[in-house]
């Protein structure tokens, strides 16, 4: 009976009551990936740790089960999951291309398990504290204003290609210290890297993506070489020359520096760009929120909560992978060793046992900080403060400069990138007028 009561409660919130059949549903289906919340609801209520035959992964859907996974990074391994899912189906061929043309195959130095993970992670944490990111606010505001100025007079722009993508690229390149770059190339590289965890890549795409990743690595290796002799005041130099007091050698190997630079450039770019696309979609489809945000534009508490609730409601990362290193029980299901899992952050953020009326945008939520858009545990997104700051500044400057922001396409025509890992709007044509 409790399930019926919950259904009734959910119906009173802004969400449809339709219940898709789990047996026939899969994240392989683009329609379902575009509008997944009913699927998530059904999983949480009927089969919370659900095997999705279409993608061959166990989907973990409830907040409490994700918490259990985050708490045990050794049994629920990122490293094993990464190895299983990376370039799925074509791994050896992918690796060979990178070794031949991309300076080498550099395993991701951050997608590892403790204790190895701890050493690398500590270095990254120092670069992205909330206090350090606060100092970047004026610089980020300049980038955002500059981009908006380019299209403010035209009355129209694409929220993704004219704003979200170039904004995140400019900011992460400035942090890394990379002064000359081609934003279009960087976007292509980003898509190539994220495609490796998309579960949607065929062989032809893999070869194309592998070549793009070779380009990316060769670009980064050249930038790293420049800084090996002469350090500069930038994040890339900090990574290369990082050394603890008691260490004789630099903390990170060359391979690790390449892989971390690659991770920063892509992670600092793709996911935040997705969040910015979601922000602009949200504003364009919620005119009352444009007005409310404008009224509170200089209220830091308001804008901070606005961003956090937006990240809860529309998390850019749908979910990331883990693999079990032994047989383990989770959410009433016994998973074998080697079970390949997708932790659905988006479903955890939609869990009505933690967030009442989860489909409702409600900035007054007291437990707003529990939202899982950044994951949790030792792998929680290390760039979370920077991402929040980027979304906050973008929200603020967009409504400060522009009004009557509207979607310049039927809402049902919005398409998403073909990946299970994120829910990223592909194109977002907007119209607006200058304030």
């Amino acid at each position: 009976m409790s399930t019926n009561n919950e259904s009734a409660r959910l119906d009173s919130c802004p969400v449809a009551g339709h219940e898709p059949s789990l047996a026939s549903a899969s994240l392989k289906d683009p329609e379902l990936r575009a509008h997944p919340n009913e699927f998530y609801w059904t999983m949480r209520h009927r089969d919370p740790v659900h095997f999705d035959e279409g993608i061959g992964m166990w989907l973990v859907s409830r907040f409490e089960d994700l918490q259990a996974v985050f708490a045990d990074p050794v049994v629920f391994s990122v490293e094993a999951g990464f190895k299983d899912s990376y370039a799925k189906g074509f791994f050896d061929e992918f690796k060979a291309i990178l070794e031949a043309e991309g300076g080498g195959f550099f395993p991701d130095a951050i997608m590892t398990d403790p204790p190895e993970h701890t050493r690398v992670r500590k270095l990254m944490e120092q670069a992205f504290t909330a206090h350090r990111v606060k100092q970047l606010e004026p610089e980020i505001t300049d980038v955002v204003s500059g981009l908006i100025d380019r299209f403010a007079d035209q009355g129209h722009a694409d929220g993704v290609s004219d704003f979200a993508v170039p904004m995140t690229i400019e900011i992460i390149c400035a942090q890394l210290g990379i002064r000359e770059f081609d934003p279009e190339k960087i976007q292509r590289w980003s898509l190539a890297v994220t495609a490796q965890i998309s579960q949607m890549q065929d062989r032809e795409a893999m070869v194309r993506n592998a070549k793009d990743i070779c380009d990316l690595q060769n670009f980064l290796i050249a930038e790293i070489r420049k800084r090996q002799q002469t350090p500069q005041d930038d994040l890339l130099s900090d990574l290369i020359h990082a050394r603890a007091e008691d260490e004789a050698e630099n903390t990170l190997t060359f391979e690790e520096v390449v892989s971390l630079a690659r991770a920063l450039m892509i992670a600092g770019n793709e996911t935040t760009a997705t969040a910015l696309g979601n922000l602009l979609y949200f504003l364009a489809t919620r005119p009352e929120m444009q007005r409310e945000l404008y009224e509170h534009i200089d209220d830091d508490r308001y804008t901070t909560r606005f961003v956090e609730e937006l990240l809860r409601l529309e998390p850019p990362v749908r979910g990331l992978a883990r693999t079990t290193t032994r047989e383990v029980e989770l959410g009433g299901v016994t998973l074998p060793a080697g079970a390949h899992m997708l932790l659905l952050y988006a479903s955890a953020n939609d869990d009505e046992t933690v967030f009442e009326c989860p489909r409702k945008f409600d900035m007054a939520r007291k437990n707003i900080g529990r939202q899982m858009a950044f994951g949790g545990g030792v792998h929680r997104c290390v760039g979370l403060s920077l991402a929040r700051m980027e979304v906050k500044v973008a929200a603020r400057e967009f409504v400060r400069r522009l009004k009557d922001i509207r979607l310049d396409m039927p809402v049902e025509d919005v398409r998403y990138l073909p990946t299970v890992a994120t829910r990223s709007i592909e194109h977002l044509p907007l119209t607006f007028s200058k304030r």
Partner: protein
Amino acid sequence: MSTVTVTLVQVDGEVITIEDAPVGESLMEVARSRGVDGILGDCGGGCACATCHVYVDPAWEAKVGKPDDIEEMTLDMVSHVTRDNSRLSCQIKLAPELDGLRVNVAPAD
């Protein structure tokens, strides 16, 4: 390196006393390395995740001080469990004058 003694009371009531907490480290780092329940420190001390939230014992509030604006903002995200004496333990740097510090670990919910 000099050390101080700090005491953390877990949500379950268990009292953990750490007698050799190094001056200069944060209370979060010390508590996490001893496995104190409820001190996760997910973001690594970056004042960004509120998973190292403690209530400072009233006798120590003045010495520990108040959160700054950035910490206030992070604490505001978990206002369902904050109190006037809430602090993020990653922002409490251990110093000789904090020898004897006592805090209660805040619940997640």
